[in-house]
Structure formats: structure tokens, C-alpha cells
């Protein structure tokens, strides 16, 4: 059917404007949103670059696992803090690019949107790290801890930075901070710091992981609270 005929049909079938539409929708309560649906929607809004970058990193890691075991371990340790930086800055994207007002007026609160994105990206990164740890020889739990500690340190640092420095400066500072943690981790492996990876220090790593996880959670809560106070 051509455009002209369709327009004519619309005129023929035209109805008088409804009078009570706005009043009706003001009184209607929206259906409660399920968390699973909300996470699904927010996952779609995470930029493709973030996913592509993560896929490239883990692709390289899996490739290296076939040839160089130590290179794999070093690469994963180096990459995890950078992924943390990417995840935190991606979650706070709306604030970095001045979309605060728009997001705060949307159906889902800015807090829940950011929390959803952090959860999605954090879960994917950690699960990917657990998967990569399978390819590193040695005790699985030890490897997981060696990967988690720099990751959680970077998460804590980046959350602190984005809370203090919202905007593009925060992205640069996060990247620099994560890069610093990566270099420290690599330096400890390739330099004279290999002793910290001995099994007798396992409980220190465990304590560090738990402490950093708690600090990251606390910092995350502070960041979310600071979002609410933006327009107070």
C-alpha cells in the first residue's frame, strides 16, 4: 500500500481526540518492575566497547594459556585492574557526560541504574577471571585470590576517585590508578616480589581480599549516596 493511500485511510478512520488520557495515566500505578527485567534492560545500555574490550582481553589470555603459563598469569593480573577501571567508569557514564538530570528523571532511579550496571559488569569480570584461573597451573583458590586482590583494590580506588572527581578527569585518574596497580602486580611477579605468592602467605591474601571487598562495598554505598545528594 502506498504512502498516499495510507494517509487517506488515516484521515478516514480518524477519531476525535480522547479527553481523559493524561488524567487516566496519572492515576494508574505502574507495574512493579522485576529485578531480572531491570538488569536485562541495563545490560543492553552498557556500551559495546566495554564488552568488546573485555572479550579481547580474555581472548588474549586464553590464547596465551596455550603457550606461556607465566605470561598468562602476568597478563590476567595486569588486566584485572584495568577491567575494574572500565567497569566503574562505564557504570558512572551518565554522570561523566552530564546526563545526570535525564537519568534522574527516568523511570528507574539513577541509583538503581548505576547499581545494576556495576553488578552486571562486576559479575561478568569476576566470573571471567574465575574461568581464566582454570588455565593457570597451581592451586585454583590461590590463583583466584591473586587475581581478586588487585581487581578489588582497583575497584575501591576507582570508586573513591569517581566520587571525589566526577567527570572526565575522573576517567583519566581511574585509568592512571588502575595502571599503577597493574604495574605493581606485574613488578612483584617479574621482579623480586615472587615470595608474596608463596602458599604460606595465603591467609594474608584471603584477609586482603575480604578487607578490600568490604572497603569496595562501603565506597560503593558512599558513591550511590553521593548521587542522591547531587540535587539536594
Amino acid at each position, binding site marked *: *500500500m502506498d504512502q*498516499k*493511500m*495510507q494517509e*487517506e*485511510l*488515516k*484521515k*478516514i*478512520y*480518524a*477519531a*476525535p481526540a*480522547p*479527553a*481523559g*488520557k493524561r488524567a*487516566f*495515566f496519572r492515576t*494508574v*500505578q*505502574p*507495574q512493579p*518492575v*522485576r529485578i531480572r*527485567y531491570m538488569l536485562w534492560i541495563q545490560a543492553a545500555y552498557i556500551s559495546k566497547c566495554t564488552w568488546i574490550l573485555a572479550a579481547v582481553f580474555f581472548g588474549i589470555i586464553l590464547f596465551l594459556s596455550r603457550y606461556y603459563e607465566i605470561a598468562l598469569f602476568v597478563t590476567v593480573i595486569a588486566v584485572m585492574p584495568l577491567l575494574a577501571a572500565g567497569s566503574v567508569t562505564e557504570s558512572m557514564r551518565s554522570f561523566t557526560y552530564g546526563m545526570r538530570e535525564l537519568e534522574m528523571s527516568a*523511570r528507574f532511579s539513577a541509583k538503581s541504574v548505576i547499581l545494576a550496571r556495576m553488578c552486571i559488569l562486576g559479575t561478568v569480570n569476576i566470573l571471567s577471571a574465575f574461568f581464566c584461573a582454570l588455565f593457570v597451573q597451581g592451586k585454583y583458590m590461590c590463583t583466584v585470590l591473586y587475581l581478586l586482590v588487585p581487581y578489588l583494590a582497583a575497584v575501591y580506588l576507582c570508586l573513591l576517585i569517581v566520587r571525589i572527581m566526577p567527570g572526565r578527569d575522573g576517567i583519566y585518574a581511574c585509568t592512571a590508578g588502575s595502571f599503577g596497580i597493574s604495574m605493581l602486580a606485574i613488578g612483584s611477579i617479574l621482579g623480586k616480589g615472587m615470595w608474596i605468592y608463596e602458599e604460606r602467605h595465603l591467609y594474608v591474601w584471603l584477609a586482603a581480599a575480604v578487607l578490600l571487598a568490604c572497603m569496595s562495598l562501603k565506597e560503593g554505598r558512599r558513591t550511590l549516596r553521593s548521587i542522591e545528594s547531587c540535587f539536594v
Partner: protein
Amino acid sequence: MLIELEEQYDCIYRYCYYRLHHVQMAEDLTQEVFLRYFEKARSENERPLPYLYTIARNLCIDEFRRKKTEYMQDSFEKELVQDMTGEHAQSVLVDTMALKQALLALTEHERELILLRYVNEVSVADLSEIFDVSRFAMYRKLKGVLKKLKNHMQG
């Protein structure tokens, strides 16, 4: 999702107005459609459109039976005829008149399909769900209706 449903309000209202030809009744029924939808919708994954139109069709049928208002079906035809005769007939384009005359030659169901597909822009998939036929059957039906319409227009 509420925003998407608000956009569909006008389409559902237009459908109810076409079926009932009464402004107030059409608006009441439209609001009833949405209230029933909010009550009964099972999940966000379900496509809302076929469900909304199914509720609207059933409510319109119930309204006919309740008030025995068969004359409402003829109201649309009367309006078409009125547009072609009467004072403003001369100002109406020849093409529009030909289209209106062709619409009069269609059955009620065929006019309903025209409204849903080409005016309310409901997809073939959703239409097939509303009328409980296969997509292929709906596609063939629409093609048949369009051909009939064009044949009548060409005289």
C-alpha cells in the same frame, strides 16, 4: 513500559471508536482495556499489543451484546456515505471519495483489518495472534483485502 503503553492508548481508542462510534463509550472502554491489562499482564516479556487488542475486541463485542447496538456497525458506513454526499462532498478529493466507496464494498471484518494494519500499524505477527490465525494466513488475507480495495477503486 508505561511510556510504550501510553503511545498505544490512541490506537486502542481509535479502534474502540471505530467499533462503537461513540466518543464517551470508546474512551471508557479504552480505559477499561488498560485497567484489565495492568491487572492481568503476566510478565514484561509478553508482547502487550496483541493482548490489548484482544481485550478491546472482547469488550466491544460484550458492549454490543449488552446494549444490542447493532446500529453502531452501520454508523461508520453512514459516515462514509455522508462524507461523499452532503455539503462538503465537493471539497473532498476524488481519490478520497473513490477510497471511501471502495471501503463500503468491504465486509466489516475486512475494514477492521485495514484499520488495524494500515492505520494503527499493527504488525502481521501481532495481527495473527489477535485473530488466532497463522502469519501466512493473515498475510494472505491482508493481500486479498488490499487487492479487493484497489479493484474497487479502479472501478
